[in-house]
């Protein structure tokens, strides 16, 4: 598998480290229901057969964290974005 790092270009998968689900969002710790929200954030994951958004790091490259949209059945990668851009867009949406 090859991942197109937005900063370095397409590289072999062995340069990357996988973390996991990029669809979960760290809850607000000051909210009244923070504990159940954190339990869900830390432990509960969907297991979709198809497109999935995942966090990868270009660990043997530029150290960037990436959000990779990948079909987990075919390994076809639709999109690779810098995690910080996704995070920034997500927080501006929330506001």
């Amino acid at each position, binding site marked *: *598998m*090859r991942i197109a790092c937005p900063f370095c270009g397409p590289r072999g998968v062995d340069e990357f480290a996988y973390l996991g689900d990029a669809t979960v969002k760290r809850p607000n710790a000051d909210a009244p229901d923070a504990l159940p929200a954190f*339990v869900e954030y*830390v432990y509960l994951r969907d297991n979709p057969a198809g497109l999935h958004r995942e966090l990868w790091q270009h660990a043997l490259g530029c150290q960037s964290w990436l959000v990779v949209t990948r079909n987990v059945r075919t390994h076809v990668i639709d999109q690779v974005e810098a*995690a910080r851009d996704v995070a920034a867009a997500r*927080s501006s949406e929330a506001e």
Partner: protein
Amino acid sequence: MSQSNRLAAGGLIDRASSIGFTFDGRRYAGHPGDTLASALLANGVKLVGRSFKYHRPRGVLTAGSEEPNALVELRSGARREPNAKATVAELYDGLEATSQNRWPSLAFDLMAVNQLASPVFVAGFYYKTFMWPAKFWEKLYEPMIRRAAGLGRLSGEADPDSYEKITAHCDVLVIGSGPAGLAAALAAGRSGARVILAEEDFALGGRLNSDRRLIGDKTSAAWAAEAVAELESLPEVTVLRRTPVVGVYDDGVYAALERVSDHMREPGAHQPRQRLWRIVAKRSVLAAGALERPIPFGGNDTPGVMLASAVRTYLNRFGVAPGKRAVVYANNDDAAATIADLAAAGCEVVAVVDARGDAPALHAAARAARASLVFGGAIARAYGGRSLKGCEIVDGRGGGFKVACDLIAVSGGWNPSIQLTTHLSARPVWDDRLAAFLPGARPVGMEVAGAAEGAYGLGDALAAGFRAGAAAAEACGFAAGAVDVPATDQEPGDTHGRGPWRSPVKRGKAFVDFQNDVTVSDVELAAREGFKSVEHLKRYTTLGMATDQGRTSNVLGLALMAEITGRSIPETGITAARAPFTPVAIGALAGAHRHKEFRPTRLPPSHFWAEEQGAVFTETGQWMRAAYFPRPGEKDWFESAVREVTTVRTAVGVYDASTLGKIDIQGADAGVFLDRVYVNAFSSLAVGKARYGLMLREDGVAMDDGTTTRLGETHYYMTTTTANAGGVMRHLELCKQWLWPELDVHFSSVTDQWAQYAIAGPRSREVVAALVDEGFDVSNEALPYMGARELTVCGGVKARLFRLSFSGELAYELAVPARYGDAMIRAIIKAGEPFGICPYGAEALAIMRIEKGHAAGPELNGNTTAADLGMGKMLSKKKDFIGRTMSGREAFLDPERPSLVGFRPVDRSARLRSGAHFVPRGETPSAANDQGYMTSTAYSPSNGHWIGLGFLARGPERMGEIVRAYDPVRGGDVEVEVVSPVFVDPEGARLRG
């Protein structure tokens, strides 16, 4: 040394030179260009191995990597390689080959008695026969089966050869160099595209070398040679011989195994034995050709029974007659060429058995070869044991006769080599007209050309190859232009082999899978017992599961099961192949990553100096650390470590702490960021001060700890534990980039940039004062406990001095750029000599940290919370931080949770061991009474007895109580007293002095 079966002329062998080799100790001669199989056949050797289960005599069936029978051990000693295919092994001078799976000799194999017990060895025999008594399995059945049924032997020695890996990028990868492959490579190569042509054979050309065909006015072999010469003249074309493509991966990644030195006695200087290629190709053309399939009949494994196409390969490519009197058994027209080639080589074709009705092409060929012809007939049985002597032929009308022969050429149609199209899980498609599986969905970027997609005719294959190569190059942006496909001679007719799939006569064992000894009756048995799907058939009979990946047997087995159960082939099932296409040595997958190249050693800056001191080293992760520095007269590590601890506690010692992870953190929001990753506050830390920090995982479990110093308003310097340095760096990057991208903060790992020495002991200030340059004050007032400052030492060397203590003594950590590390340790020792300084190692450090009750790896073990570690009060209530919310989970707040305390033995002479579990006095040791466990123990020179740290339920409330430290693994059962985890200077007066 006569090559009695070598033809007088012809073949792609160098007849001018003769090379010697041995098989089972006997000397033979062959020519460069031979395989081991062709050279053995040239010398009249037909018996080359014994079969897996029944130990039946076996010969050469094929002329390629699909060979199921002719498996041998190559070489000797540490280089011995089992299960090598004689049909692939390239002959070299001095080659040693040994037959395998026979005892005491190949010709006389006592294990062949297995055949008498063959009713026992049918499909699924190991599920049925060796069921009980259960204890017999390990002691009797398994060793017995392993001895009797097996393949070659491993050398049992370390592999003396080296392997390497390489990554290559290209526009077009062409897999296979037969007519379609050469045409594709030519079309793509002429356009200027970067082309890699990978061929598993050492000769390029595939069946162009095996058949006598005409392309234009040239023989097919001559055309192939010209095509290869042209390809090798093109600057962007790389031709890889002896390089099967073994796997297809996502996004145009291919694995290929180049057998760099397998055709030599041993690799040349600085050459690997094999090289694993990772080829990244924009497009690929699969031109892997097709493999002929056999037709099962009784005794079809007798040495002398061979595929008809392989017979042509031996005749035309190697100039070897595999027999003198041949019978041809076919269900299609392809064998016409075999008949003609045998006749042309001077071999007698005594009979041609066409399993179909009247078929003009074979008719004509048989007549031309003056062979008797049987339409609608079959071979009932071959006989001869170790070497074919003849066969019984039945005609379609119930009559039969025997003929003497020493060769049976069998042609049952063709299987396109589509394995590489299925590696990414695409399913092949059955084609009734071709009676073959064709590629289904192709991997992205791959085209299939020639016989691999069912275009068996030479002209069709050439045209398809040129077309596919041009299309692939154009897809990569190159202009391929039009190609004139050369004209070819007449095609052989209907070569599709639509059945019959087997001889209708059942007499003796008719093998489907030769390598795993699976017969037609095993397939019938599987059907009777309900294992009718192809996946069940495979696993029940082991059909297709040998190292040949069932390349001559899979489709045949499936067709037979379909016929037996009255279903179509697609209804019966489809099997897809997995990588690797041919066996790959583990060594090739490892490449250079062996021993220290797998896990490199990191040396701290004082390493060479420590070696000079006679230090004994220990590996901590990748780091090589000095464990202790023995002095003359000290008899073991214990004595040395105790002396080092005593020196630190009474005078001064120095320790290389450079292995700690070090991270430089800068940015306007650095303080805010650290507040969020540590449980305690760092934004409030004053410049020039250090603070101990604890990090949690988001689930509330302790992750790492260390000290972080504020060097400037927007500049911090973090240290992590040695083991977690990489993980913490990764965590910080994730927090910054993913959780809080709005923060202005950046990190740089500086572990390798700074040499950092701990100088510890009551005299440490005097040593430090002797090192710092004039004008820098290191007094208690100027640099108090947990203070830090940047200064210079030894006449201008930039340094950072921290007043930190892990040992519990007055102590400093002095950091200088790593290039000064060696000079610095020498300078520290020199400056410390008047104060009695000694270097101390990891053993002394471990003792002192237990004496001070500092948590380390055994306590930060992935199960413990801040509260468990006695640091619950550090958790800030004023801010959010990673792990804060989950620290409040009910289970983590349970007062019964074991938490950190110290232990000392009631009998002060007793030894403590980590791993012991705590049980209340008077209670039976059991899981129900388990109250925690000991994590770290040491003999404390400062206390004069053993001490321990551990987690005990309600531990801090139970000071003075006596519990049992129960250690059934090592037979320990010691009464211990619960005490404070700080065994030395509990008030901390020494560090602040």
